[in-house]
């Protein structure tokens, strides 16, 4: 019994520490004599003296669990009448009998562990391959980007020169035209003077009218935008927030609000806005809600909705309206989301998004055009990412400088072909210049778009080993009940139900040392936070999304299994663990 008291609850590696007659509390506060070890009285506030009892709240109990894995328990579990260690060693005061279940539990655990190890083994291989490919692809795309930038520079120059030439030609043409007109006018003047005067006047008026009309047709939104832009971003924010709450008001009260008098909607809007901005703004609430004319049922729903935040409409109606609302909301939050993130809501940002969405199509077009009707043809493969895996060997062998020289040559020849003479204007020359100008500016804007796409992509965080590179143009889907969850790393995540899409969040970042992806700033929740999603990454052989949950309102979590997180170190840990388990098993077998 004494022997067990001296080793009770102590980790085998710590036994040495407890060997001496005078033992120090680990926090250095004091020391205690050996009789006080596990004597059911807490002497060291850090629990050093009671590893085997529940006397010190800070101490930990070690159970060996031969046949399974050792476990360290909080002291609160010792002799509490509940079997925590599979070897039953935590319950030794005789109040309960804990059978030793380590053998079976260990067997099951080992099997599970072995499966996991198998997954990791394969996963590590897949991951390695992915990383190699990713690195190649990144190098390739970086190289491409560099080249594109050089080419852009040259092209800009060329386009600039073409533009100059084009303008020269146009100027010359204009002069020619004026001279010609003057001559013609002289002729005409001589013939019919009075009549023509009258008819010309009529035509002028007509033209003026048309122009006026055109001006009126200009969409008023442009004008609004202009005003918004000039009045500063904070103002714009307010405006948008208001429109946001407008939607919410509709969500909350459409069944009553749409059919009843307009001030209901207004009041509601105000209420909701109050709620959204400052839920408990007690002092300034003077608004009176007009509830006359509501049916009893509508009133009941309305009041209930305060607590639940649910749509107060009829059930079926609710569903459809929700969808509508969500659509609108999506659009709105996108905008306001930008305003939150960037102080200057810029067009560039929106453009980038467009590239993101249409990226593949765009690029394909570029490529196609390039090959079919490009004015020059050199071997620059603008590979799309989808072909990356098969295409690595096609990486251009042409050295950078020779490639550039080739382009330069082409440009030179284009320029040379254009005569800089001024007079007289050669018609074919003019149209050639125009065509060259149009073609090359188109080319330039395509290159610029590709540059922006590539640089946007390459600035992303693909992980310490670029193991997440392949996530860039992928979306992962999981169907759960009526919803389809769609997670697109580096972009956004959404929940789709039929035709309605709810934005769960936009790409934010990796967290927990690349064990989790975070999407934030999704669609706003009534009376709650903006939706967000955390995707926990688990080692698996395929990319598979599962277990989407909403543990807290509008805060979603999901699990994605992927080879990208099958780490070699972890595999080693697991192997060690299995080894330890097997060793323990062998030992306990020997003991038996």
């Amino acid at each position: 019994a004494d022997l067990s008291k001296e080793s009770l609850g102590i980790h085998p590696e710590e036994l040495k520490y407890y060997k001496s007659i005078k033992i120090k509390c680990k926090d250095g506060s004091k020391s205690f004599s050996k009789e006080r070890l596990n004597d059911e009285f807490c002497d060291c506030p850090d629990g050093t003296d009671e590893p085997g009892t529940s006397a010190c709240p800070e101490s930990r109990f070690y159970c060996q669990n031969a046949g399974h894995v050792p476990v360290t328990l909080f002291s609160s579990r010792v002799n509490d009448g509940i079997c925590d260690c599979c070897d039953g060693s935590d319950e030794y005061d005789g109040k309960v009998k804990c059978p030793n279940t380590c053998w079976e539990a260990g067997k099951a655990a080992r099997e599970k562990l072995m499966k996991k190890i198998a997954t990791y083994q394969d996963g590590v291989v897949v991951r390695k391959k992915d990383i190699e490919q990713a690195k190649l692809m990144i190098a390739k795309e970086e190289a491409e980007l560099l080249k594109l930038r050089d080419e852009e520079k040259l092209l800009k120059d060329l386009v600039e020169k073409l533009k100059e030439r084009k303008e020269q030609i146009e100027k010359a043409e204009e002069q020619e035209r004026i001279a010609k007109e003057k001559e013609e006018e002289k002729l005409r003047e001589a013939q019919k003077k009075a009549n023509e005067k009258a008819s010309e006047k009529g035509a002028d008026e007509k033209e003026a009218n048309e122009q006026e009309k055109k001006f009126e047709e200009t969409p008023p939104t442009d004008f609004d935008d202009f005003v918004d832009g000039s009045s500063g971003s904070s103002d714009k924010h307010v405006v948008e927030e208001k429109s946001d709450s407008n939607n919410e008001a509709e969500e909350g009260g459409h069944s009553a609000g749409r059919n009843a008098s307009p001030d209901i909607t207004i009041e509601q809007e105000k209420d909701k806005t109050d709620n959204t901005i400052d839920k408990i703004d007690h002092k300034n609430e003077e608004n009176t809600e007009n509830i006359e004319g509501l049916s009893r049922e509508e009133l009941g729903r309305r009041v209930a909705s305060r607590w639940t935040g649910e749509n107060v409409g009829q059930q079926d109606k609710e569903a459809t309206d929700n969808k509508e609302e969500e659509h609108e909301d999506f659009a709105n939050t996108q905008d306001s989301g930008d305003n939150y993130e960037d102080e200057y809501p810029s067009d560039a940002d929106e453009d980038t998004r467009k590239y993101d969405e249409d990226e593949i199509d765009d690029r394909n077009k570029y490529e196609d055009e390039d090959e079919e009707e490009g004015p020059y043809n050199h071997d620059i493969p603008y590979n799309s990412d989808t072909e990356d895996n098969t295409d690595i060997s096609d990486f251009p062998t042409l050295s950078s400088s020779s490639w550039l020289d080739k382009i330069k040559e082409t440009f030179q020849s284009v320029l040379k072909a254009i005569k800089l003479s001024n007079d007289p204007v050669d018609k074919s020359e003019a149209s050639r210049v125009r065509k060259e100008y149009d073609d090359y500016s188109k080319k330039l804007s395509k290159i610029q778009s590709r540059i922006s796409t590539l640089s946007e992509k390459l600035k992303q965080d693909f992980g310490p080993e670029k193991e997440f590179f392949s996530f860039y143009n992928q979306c992962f889907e999981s169907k759960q009940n009526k919803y389809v969850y769609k997670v697109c790393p580096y972009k956004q995540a959404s929940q789709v139900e039929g035709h309605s899409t709810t934005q769960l969040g936009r790409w934010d970042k990796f967290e927990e040392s690349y064990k989790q992806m975070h999407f934030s700033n999704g669609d706003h929740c009534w009376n709650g936070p903006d939706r967000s999603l955390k995707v926990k990454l688990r080692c698996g052989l395929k990319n598979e999304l599962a277990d989407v949950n909403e543990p807290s309102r509008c805060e979603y979590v999901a699990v994605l299994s992927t080879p990208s997180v099958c780490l070699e170190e972890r595999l080693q840990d697991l192997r060690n663990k299995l080894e330890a388990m097997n060793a323990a098993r062998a030992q306990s077998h020997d003991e038996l």
Partner: protein
Amino acid sequence: WKKEEFRNCNQTPFCKQSRSRKPGSCSFIASEPVIENGELVAKLIAKPLQNQEEEPEKLEPLILRISVYHGGILRFKIDESPDSPVTKKRFEVPDVLMKDLDEKKLWLQRISSPENGKGSVLYLSPGYEAVLQFDPFEIYIRKGNDPNAIISFNSNGLFNFEQLQNKREGDDWEERFRSHTDSRPFGPQSISFDISFHKANNVYGIPEHATSLALAPTKGPGIESEPYRLFNLDVFEYISESPFGLYGSIPVMISHNSERTTGFFWLNAAEMQIDVLGHGWNAIDGIAPQHEAIDTHWMAEAGVLDAFFFLGPTPKDVIGQYTKVTGTSAMPQYFATAYHQCRWNYRDEEDVAEVDAKFDEHDIPYDVLWLDIEHTDGKRYFTWDKLLFPNPTEMQNKLMAKGRHMVTIVDPHIKRDDGFALHKEAAKLGYYVKDYSGKDYDGWCWPGSSSYLDMLNPEIRSWWAEKFSLENYVGSTRSLYIWNDMNEPSVFNGPEVTMPRDAIHFGGAEHREVHNAYGYYFHMATAEGLLKRGGGNDRPFVLSRAFFPGSQRVGAIWTGDNSADWDHLRVTIPMVLTLGLTGISFSGADVGGFFGNPEPELLVRWYQLGAYYPFFRGHAHHDTRRREPWLFGEKNTALIREAIHIRYALLPYYYTLFREASVSGVPVMRPLWIEFPADEATFNNDEAFMVGNSLLVQGIYTEGARSTIVYLPRGQTWYDMRSGDAYSGGKNYTLEVSMESIPSFQKGGTVIPRKDRFRRSSTQTMDDPFSLVIALNSSMEAEGELYMDDGKSYDYEQGAYIHRHFVFSKGILTSSSMRSTKTSKKTLSSNSVIERVIVLGLSSSAKSALIEPAKHTTEVEPGPLTLRKGSSAVGVTIRKPNVRIDEDWAIKLV
């Protein structure tokens, strides 16, 4: 808060009219006193009008009955004459007064006349008399021959009683509010009067309001406020510092000065409005009458006048007198006094299992996991959502295996769904409250169209109680207890979010007469169900939001849907203290605040304070972010764990206090002035409070607080509960505070029993050893108590309990039994021992202690107050005396 949704006094005809009455406008005088049935019975007749031109209204006289109860209780009742021609009887609230109250009645033998001959004088208690003065009509209590009143009725002549009339042609009694019409078939029937608390410094009581402990005046020079309203309402996002009515009502007011405490109770369940009148309210031409009293004006829409004066003289006496009339707190089960974890909603069984596991993972104890409305099948109570909770029994059993319990919600609204057996049965039996036209009242609540059981009817309560049997409540187990929410009742489409006043209850009572007690009857019926389920020997645990006098006998109360802000944190203390003063000992507020997301600092502070609430539960609205204790980083997790651990360590002390409350009525959590009635500096203090007589706690109610001012009452030495530092009382101290804890002090002269071993839940602590913390007073003495029983059954009523008295004097700690010798059919033994005695304030160099009668010695050495990393020795520790808790012994320092 939707202010416009609720009526203010001006929109409430009876209130507007009563409030505008002038002092001295009472038109009644008393006459013809006789002794009848041991009571004084007199008639109240109209005062002869001085202006003879007006014909006095021909009314039957009112009947006044005055009776006296043992122990300083005066009761006076005014009702219509039995000869009244009106058939409608006014409603008297049943099942509130104790059944044995009549046994405590002092049978009056004779009436004597006061000095001036215009009245009657009754013996009240030794040295005290009650006086009925005929004209002007007044009832008051005085001491001996001192002519000054202590507490009085109608001293300002505001008494008015609108007698019932038969409806005549042309009478239009309807009242409209917003889109609602109250048919008021019986017309105006309000009662109002004034009560004066003479020489009082403050008045307290009349919950439930989110206001200060000492009631601020609501009317008088320079004061513009609504009266305190007592009308049980489901108020969405209520605000702090407002006299509007919340979820429950207790028409009890307590006055206090440094010499005397008195109390007043009006048993009436109708809407009530109460003005506390500021000094000079009745001034004529700006000159306030010389009158040192706090006058109060009481107004109710209906009911009878059935009122009580409590003589005191101490605060504990008044509470004892009140709880003699309405009962003391039920003795809770041990687990119910521990920590509860709730959220709207724990989604499914997986969620429940995960939350449960996380508590263990973080070594945070908890005893009860709660399920809100979403666990049901479409808000049909007693059912389970089959997808989310397919195996409720298994789920509960898994929790029970760790000694944990579960609570599910059962609300009073019943879904009107013919596929729902409960509804079908209730409708068939005619058990629903009726609307004014006699049909089942159809309101709107969580399930949509709903009806409400008429819990006023004992037969329906008994039927309801059967629904909690294990057979009827499919998926329930013996470890499942119940939560009654929305029982004001909350009706989303009713006037003021409640039931129309002209709805009809059992016996023809109108809802207006029953309203404030509805939730109480529902609570009562539910508790009866759990009692039946346990064969009468399992103490029910039912939490209710609505309450009324008597609710303390039934179960626990919480302060409803508060918000996650600092003001709400602060106001929980006066709210809980007020409930305690008015008999409801077992109460608390949602830790963290129901609405909104608390910042981690607020949440930590709330746990630190909430750990001292008698009822300790974390709860959150479903729109809020998850806030289980481990979600705010390791540091905050540790702080919250520590706060919860403090509560668990103190559970033996709390349980002893619950016992005291169940015997004497004195609440677990107390305003300072209950313990220090002569210390005027405590009278307005509602930031600090006492837990029992030994522990003072000061909350921290501001963000980023670095220091706080704590007043420590005079005449005592106080010991910091963490550092052991001693402070002398009678001073304000400015103390540094950190996030580690809120200030708490043990009073010199007390002994607090603790359990310092931490477990998963209180269930595993039953056999664990105790620590005793002894804080010595200036005479080097201290005493304290420990009560324990099986924590579950009623066997303690037959003597199965341990009740120890610990006394430390002259260096000797003794334990003796406080068991009553009367009840000893059963006994309780315990294997628990005392593992540690910590003595604070001892100047002794004792190295060992001698234990009698075992005659063994044990070591004495310096030791810390808490077993935490970094704690240092601050007191004298007697190591391992290991004396049995259920035996007599003495430990002598040598």
